[in-house]
C-alpha cells in the first residue's frame, strides 16, 4: 500500500512538474506548480521529515506560490483569461537537458550508495530546534539578516520611482 502511494505521489510530482514547464498557459503552470509542491511535500513525509514537510506547505504553497501568482497578475492584463507563454530553443534545450539527466542518472546508478539499515524514525522538530539554536546559530542569524535584506531589497526594487 505504502509502495503504491509512493508511486502515486511520485507520479503527481513529476507529472505536474512537467505541466509547469510545458503548459502554454501561465496560470496553468502556476497551478501545476502547486501540485508539484504538494507532491514533494508528500515525498518529504515519506522521508520522515515531518517538520520540513510542514514548512514546505507553509512557505512554498502559502508564500512563494501566492507571490508567483501575484507576479503573474501584476505583469499581465487582468482581463486576458488566457495568459499564454511560449518556449524558446526547445529542441536544443531538450537535448541538453536529456544529456545532463542521462549523466546524472548514470551517476546515481553507478555509485555504490551505502544505506544504513534499521534506522529508527524519530521526532525531528525538537532536534532541528536544538541544532538551529546551538550548532547552526550563526547561519540561522545570517539567514534572518538575509531575509531582512531581501525584504528591504524587494520593497525598494518594486517601488515606483518618484
Amino acid at each position, binding site marked *: 500500500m505504502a509502495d503504491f502511494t509512493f508511486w502515486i505521489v511520485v507520479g503527481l510530482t513529476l507529472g505536474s*512538474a512537467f505541466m509547469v514547464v510545458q503548459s502554454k498557459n501561465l496560470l496553468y503552470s502556476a497551478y501545476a506548480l502547486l501540485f508539484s509542491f504538494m507532491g514533494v511535500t508528500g515525498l518529504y513525509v515519506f522521508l520522515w521529515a515531518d*517538520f520540513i514537510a510542514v514548512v514546505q506547505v507553509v512557505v512554498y504553497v502559502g508564500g512563494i506560490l501566492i507571490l508567483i501568482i501575484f507576479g503573474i497578475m501584476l505583469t499581465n492584463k487582468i482581463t486576458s483569461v488566457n495568459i499564454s507563454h511560449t518556449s524558446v530553443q526547445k529542441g536544443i534545450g531538450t537535448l541538453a537537458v536529456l544529456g545532463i539527466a542521462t549523466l*546524472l542518472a548514470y551517476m546515481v546508478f553507478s555509485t555504490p550508495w551505502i544505506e544504513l539499515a534499521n534506522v529508527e524514525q524519530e521526532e525531528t522538530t525538537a532536534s532541528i530546534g536544538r541544532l538551529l539554536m546551538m550548532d547552526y546559530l550563526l547561519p540561522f542569524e545570517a539567514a534572518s539578516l538575509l531575509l531582512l535584506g531581501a525584504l528591504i531589497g524587494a520593497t525598494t526594487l518594486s517601488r515606483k520611482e518618484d
Partner: protein
Amino acid sequence: MDSLTNYLVVSVVLFSLGLFGVITRRNGVAVLMGVELILNSANLNFLAFARFGGMNMAGHVFALFVIVLAAAEAAVALAIIINIFNNFQTINVDEVSDLKQ
C-alpha cells in the same frame, strides 16, 4: 519504495524538468517556477540522504535554510521582474537582451 536510488531518480527528473523550464521558458515568472523546481529537487536530495544516513538532522537544517533562501530569492526575483515589466513593458526574457554586444 524504501530505497535511496528511487528518491535520487525522482530528484534527477525533477531537476531536469526545472532546468528545462529555466532554459526554454520566455516568461520571467515561468523561469522562476523552473528555479523553484530545481530547489525542490535539491531539498529532496538533502532529506533523502539524511533519511538513509541514519536520520542525520544536519540535512534537515540545510533543507530549512534552502527553503528560507528560496523564499528570499522569490521575493527579490519577483521584485526584479516587476521592475523589468515597468521598464520594458514585457517580462519575456528573450526580449530583454541588453547584454547583447
